[in-house]
């Protein structure tokens, strides 16, 4: 991965009208890697992702992406810049077919040939899209829906993929496939910004980690640094820091 700063948060304050959830958040997401944000419930992780995709407008601060400030831009403008988000709750349109859902990922692309070509590529990358193309999305299992959501988010060929707790509600087998898919998206050239409840597993595959606590950045560093930090491990990763050997596995 490159170390160039791809997304830079500086002095970000944001909330929902009843006070700030994010308080002076500042960190950078390196280009080409996977950055995982961890922290306890209510620390502002999902709110932070929503500020990137334009669903929540920060009260103060800047979020710079490719030289442009995302603050104040609409979700549509941010998509056009190459930032896509897969939200925490399943977001497929249940009454539409799997193929229609994936094709909608390229809603902003007007060239039908380009859409068809990208759809064909994604059918190879995600066999579930080809296998269940004409089935209603609502008929898929939770894990299958998540994979179709991943496929849909790639239709725009985004530079930055924002994933909000993608493993939520998945069984262990599907969880493994989901993490492999995140890795695959990253290897295909996408920078990934991830909030994940399976923090230990997510940090293991991440190049960079950020710990949010009460809306502040408590710690940031490489994935391994965060994973092996003694206090963070005890507080947020389900136990004490791992041994060096485990941490680097």
């Amino acid at each position: 991965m490159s170390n160039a700063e791809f997304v830079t948060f500086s002095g970000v304050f944001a909330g929902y009208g009843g006070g700030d959830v994010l308080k002076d958040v500042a960190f950078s997401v390196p280009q080409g890697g996977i950055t995982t944000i961890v922290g306890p419930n209510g620390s502002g992780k999902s709110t932070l992702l929503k500020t990137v995709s334009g669903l929540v407008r920060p009260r103060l601060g800047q979020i710079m992406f490719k030289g442009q400030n995302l603050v104040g831009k609409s979700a549509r403008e941010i998509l056009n810049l190459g930032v896509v988000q897969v939200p925490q709750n399943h977001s497929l349109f249940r009454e539409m077919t799997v193929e229609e859902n994936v094709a909608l990922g390229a809603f902003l692309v007007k060239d039908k040939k380009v859409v068809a070509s990208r759809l064909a590529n994604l059918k190879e990358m995600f066999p579930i899209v080809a296998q269940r193309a004409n089935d209603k999305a609502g008929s898929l299992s939770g894990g299958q829906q998540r994979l179709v959501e991943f496929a849909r988010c790639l239709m725009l060929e985004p530079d930055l993929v924002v994933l909000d707790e993608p493993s939520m509600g998945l069984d262990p087998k599907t969880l493994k496939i989901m993490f492999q898919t995140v890795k695959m998206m990253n290897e295909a050239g996408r920078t990934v910004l991830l909030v994940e409840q399976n923090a230990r597993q997510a940090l293991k595959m991440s190049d960079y980690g950020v710990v949010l606590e009460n809306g502040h950045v408590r710690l940031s560093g490489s994935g391994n640094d965060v994973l092996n930090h003694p206090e963070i491990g005890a507080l947020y990763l389900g136990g004490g820091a791992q041994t060096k050997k485990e941490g680097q596995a």
Partner: protein
Amino acid sequence: MVHALIDGVLTGSVYALMATGLTLIFGVMEIINVAQGIFVILGAYLSYYLQLHFGIDLFAGLLITIPTMFVVGIVVQRLFLARLKGPEKTAMSILVTYAISLVIEGILNIAFTVNNVQLNTSYTNKSFQVFGVYIPYIYFMGFLLAIVLLSGLYYMLYRTRFGASIRASLADQSAAALVGIDVKKVSTICFGIGIAVTAAGGMVFGATNAFNASTSYDLISRLLTIIVLGGMGSLAGALVAGIAMVTLEDLVGAIWSPVWSTMAFFVVLVVVLSFRPQGLFGQQSARAA
């Protein structure tokens, strides 16, 4: 009985058209437009005015009234409904659209008085015979008009990019925004379309029934019943429930007594909702996400 069946299907299709507009508005915007009835009557009065003062044929006049009602819908949505936000939006929409309904009713009463009128042309009182049943031309033409407009609407919804954006907004507005759909724009245009269809529905209604502004109360109660029975936000539900309810009403009137026909309409609603609170085609958790 055959006559009642045919009449029910022909008339029901026009109700289905009017109800489709109502359910589209609810589905996309979560707005219960209780002014839909008065918009139907406004559409009928527009046709009446064009015929009376300019001699324009009822069907030809739709080329003017449909776009006019579309623009009226856009203006009403931008001025009054776009401002409704938050969890109270749907409840507030009932009050706001009721106020709009009262204002339009008042204006129509001043402009056209409270006397009943009916749209008349050379073909409104003529009929043709099929299998021994006399079918008035206006009912058949109204049916064809409803089929053409509903087909156009369904083609737009299921075969076009804009239609996909409407269906996505119907399902989940946040998810629709995340794929780049301009939900505000979709909402405005949907409201325009929902009101535009009342021009056609109003013309056929006015050519088959005497009406004045207060007729809108009976209309809106029927239209709301149809979309609740079909499932709020379900286009297929509006179509099926519209035809089924009016056909049932006509059949009960023919077999039993017209006195009970309106009651049968509501008995079916109560029975269906007892077993399927979400209506025939509605989804209980469709908007939970």
